[in-house]
């Protein structure tokens, strides 16, 4: 039995660049940075004082205080992004999506802010004053459950926590569910809202973050010789994925096809990528094979491109290993240069970027790429968007833990 083809029919997002898909895309192709000094809490004691925050979003205004206060911020963002995606897919009039729709969400650290608040209350006021909603806010599957409740999603649900590969894995596992006929439609996405004083401190302790506090908008410099770490970001992005037959029978516009998924594990080190990006190479090869294409068919790569010294070099090596000579010709970019690192929300966001790049025949740039690095010598689309007919786009995501997830998207 041949596998069913999987399409994307709806997109929704809230992220440091915009609170909907069209604003986000416009800022992406204009090379706008969504990174700035942190406003959510006092950073005066922290070694890093900037991040990519979602702006102009008040959960009380959006869903009412009584509902909003029951959810962690990641839950607010997840419901918001899902609502846009469902509307885009022509599903906004459905009372409940029902048993033939699944949900797969990715997150790196779930409701970590709720965890921190509960621990503080416990220490300051004792066990009897701990927020009774703490567990339902902090559990990593909180967004998955809250979105399912809100929109009546009764099919299978999964929450994937493979760190910064989480929502790329979510899109990939959603593809598998639809291909194999388990359900006809999956709400797939990822959310992170883990920018707290503790997580900043902890990531800074392992020297993972950029410390360019004086120039937040220029701090994230993927593939630049002066890159010094990633920048924390928050946001949620949701894709409505369904079988091609389902989309055609509903008569809705198809953005593109989710054609390939490759997932591997380095089994090497808990944070550092394997030498030469060995695990990434295998994931890329698997994704290409799954899509039934060869490396030379790829027109655009949305890189993981975190702006850490180790990732960008090893990812470059991995691309060279798989693509050979073609590696120097292909258009690559890291949109993290503008959003910061959305962690568990990154894979879904970058899946969206890949799909929009195909739709608009345009490659969003890698901003802040000014000083070439001899170890990163590919075409990373520095600083300005370029027009390009894209039939096939690939998105790389790699996570702490050694998780590698690669997705291939096609126009037809």
């Amino acid at each position, binding site marked *: 039995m041949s596998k069913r083809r999987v399409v994307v029919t709806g997109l929704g997002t809230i992220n440091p660049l915009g609170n909907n898909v069209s604003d986000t895309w416009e800022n992406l192709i204009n090379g706008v940075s969504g990174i700035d000094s942190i406003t959510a809490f006092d950073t005066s004691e922290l070694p890093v004082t900037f991040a990519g925050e979602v702006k102009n979003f008040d959960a*009380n205004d959006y869903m009412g205080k*009584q*509902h909003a206060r*029951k959810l962690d911020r990641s839950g607010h963002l997840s419901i918001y992004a899902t609502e846009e995606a469902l509307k885009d897919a022509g599903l906004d009039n459905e009372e409940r999506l029902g048993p033939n729709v699944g949900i797969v969400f990715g997150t790196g650290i779930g409701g970590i802010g709720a965890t921190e608040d509960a621990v503080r209350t416990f220490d300051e006021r004792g066990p009897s*004053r701990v*927020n009774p909603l703490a567990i339902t806010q902090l559990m990593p599957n909180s967004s998955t459950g809250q979105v399912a409740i809100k929109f009546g999603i009764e099919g299978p649900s999964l929450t994937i926590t493979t760190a910064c590969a989480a929502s790329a894995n979510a899109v990939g596992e959603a593809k598998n569910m639809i291909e194999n006929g388990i359900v006809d439609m999956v709400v797939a996405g990822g959310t992170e809202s883990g920018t707290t004083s503790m997580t900043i401190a902890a990531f800074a302790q392992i020297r993972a973050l950029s410390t360019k506090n004086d120039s937040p908008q220029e701090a994230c410099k993927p593939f630049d010789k002066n890159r010094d770490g990633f920048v924390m970001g928050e946001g949620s992005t949701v894709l409505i994925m369904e079988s091609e037959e389902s989309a055609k029978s509903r008569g809705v516009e198809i953005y593109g096809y989710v054609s390939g998924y490759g997932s591997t594990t380095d089994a090497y080190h808990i944070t550092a990528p394997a030498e030469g990006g060995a695990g990434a190479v295998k994931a890329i090869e698997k994704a290409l094979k799954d899509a039934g294409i060869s490396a030379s068919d790829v027109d655009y790569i949305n890189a993981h491109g975190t702006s850490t010294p180790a990732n960008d070099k090893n990812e470059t090596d991995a691309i060279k290993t798989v693509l050979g000579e073609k590696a120097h010709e292909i258009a690559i970019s890291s949109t993290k240069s503008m959003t910061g690192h959305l962690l568990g929300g990154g894979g879904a966001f970058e899946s969206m970027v890949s799909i929009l790049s195909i739709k608009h025949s345009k490659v969003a740039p890698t901003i802040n790429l000014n000083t070439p690095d001899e170890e990163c010598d590919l075409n990373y689309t520095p600083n300005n968007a370029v027009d390009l007919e894209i039939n096939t786009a690939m998105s790389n995501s790699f996570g702490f833990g050694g998780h590698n997830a690669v997705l291939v998207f096609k126009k037809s």
Partner: protein
Amino acid sequence: MEVNEVFEKVKNLFVEELGIDAEKVTMEAKLEEDLEIDSLGIVEVVMAFEDEFGIEIDDDELTDVGTVGQAVNLLHSKL
């Protein structure tokens, strides 16, 4: 404290702390059906009462509390 003073404090707490619409909070309002306070929410309500009135409420005192009025009367009896 008079019953109506207790009610005003309870109403204020529901509106300010829990985000419930003021016009919904009457003595007759049912906590679960009218105010959408579920089993998790009840624990929050009790915590808020304890902080506001400086009292302790045992779980078994709540078995007969289904409306705002019943909660107000329970609080009034403990003050």
